């Protein structure tokens, strides 16, 4: 299974990198091949409809068509497992 994910954070390189590595790896172990890009939060409206999922590490107010998941549990460690399983569920539909 191939899926596209956009990982976004405020700088585009710090927390999104941490999360991307973890999520892509977890997906791989669950049979999902992920193609991804990293972005800054401000770029999200332009990236709407370009991916299967948007994973962010800050509060996003904008309403988009693409499902958005907040992945701060990966940074804090609290609720990380549940979050990763939710992502798999969402991608597998």
């Amino acid at each position, binding site marked *: 299974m191939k899926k596209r994910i956009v990982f976004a954070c*405020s700088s*585009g*390189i*710090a*927390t999104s*990198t*941490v999360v991307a*590595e973890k999520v892509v790896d977890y997906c791989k172990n669950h049979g999902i091949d992920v193609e991804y890009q990293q972005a800054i939060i401000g770029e999200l409206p332009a990236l709407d409809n370009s991916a299967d999922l948007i994973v962010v590490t*800050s*509060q996003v107010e904008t309403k988009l068509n693409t499902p958005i998941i907040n992945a701060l549990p990966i940074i804090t460690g609290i609720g990380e497992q549940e979050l990763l399983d939710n992502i798999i569920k969402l991608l597998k539909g």
Partner: protein
Amino acid sequence: MSKIIIPEKSVFTDLEVSNKEEALRILADSLLEQGFIHDNFYKSLINREKNFPTGLEFHGIGIAIPHTDPKYIKKDSIAVAVLNKPVIFQDMVDKSNSINVKIIFLLGLSESTKHLNILKQIIDLIQVKGALEEMLTMSKSHLYSYLVEKLSVE
């Protein structure tokens, strides 16, 4: 490929400041003096902190991981400060929540070291039970060598 430097001059222990702006000013200035960042780094850092706060709590200890737009970086580096008294940062998870921060990891990172995923290494390090507590008691030189050893830095 680029490497990340923790300049020994940018590791502070027992730092006495009244608020986060003062702490970040000292850390940013130390990196600026040594040529790691551009002039506007500090202003951008403070602005970013307002909109996207970087306070976090691990095992009851408040830390912060301030960072900002990679375009202000000349050479990748990290500055670290253990504070004498905690200062308030807002919570990355809930910006209305305040965190009493005792250790600041200022990340002066650009695209060129993304592959090192240094933030992940820092998070893995501080998630180890007792690691942060230990860091709170280290001398400056001990903290410096500890960080250089634990992270893929120079």
